[in-house]
């Protein structure tokens, strides 16, 4: 397990949000958010690479 440092104010907000959303812990909440954001980032990167290849093939501008 790794550790990261975040601003204490942000941590308090995350704790409140995790509780309100029904997460069992702030760790679970933050992990879920990170996974979601990383998946979005990886999908965007994949489609950028696809776009580059399609551009090379002359199928898009």
């Amino acid at each position, binding site marked *: 397990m790794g550790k990261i440092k975040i601003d204490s104010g942000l941590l308090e907000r995350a704790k409140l949000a995790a509780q309100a959303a029904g997460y069992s812990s702030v760790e679970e909440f933050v992990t879920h958010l990170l996974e979601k954001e990383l998946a979005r980032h*990886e*999908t965007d*990167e*994949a*489609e950028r*690479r*696809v*776009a*580059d*290849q*399609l551009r*090379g*093939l*002359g*199928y*898009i*501008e």
Partner: protein
Amino acid sequence: MSDVGIVIVSGLPRSGTSLMMQMLAGGGLEAMTDNTRAADVDNPRGYYELEQVKSIKRDASWLNQAVGKVFKMVSLLLYDLPADRRYRVIFVERNLDEILASQGKMLQRLGRPAGNADEMRRSFTTHLVKLNAWLGQQGHIDVLRVGYHDLLASPLAQAERINQFLGGALDTAKMAAAVDPSLYRNRKQA
């Protein structure tokens, strides 16, 4: 043929979309193409492309002339279709390794760089997963999936499936006759 609406042949490049266009044109559906990209060694029977398709995000006014006709559109551009119209999309699917091999040869002939093979396989897979999920949520887009290998193995049966999807007005015998298995190249190595 206007009651068929706007028909789009889509898929990844080198998946068999030009073959599908040949089938539909053979069956009696008017194909929108400007022949800007001429037939070559990669597509000996022509590409059936329309340059306007590439700029659909900026200008979709030409769709007014697309009712009752078919045009080809690469998968990534489907996101840009205006949602105020209905579309019937025939999505051609083929083994991804064969597609990438064929794209690699085409890029080489064009003198352009190809991405890393493993990375591109992962990227195209991610793209298809996202696109398929998105298509499933689009009430204005009806999709028929057709396998490239199924087209080669049983062209008449596939022509009948496609004809049913498009309302039943096409000549399926002529559609099937457009399939030439000798053009099946870039096979996946066993």
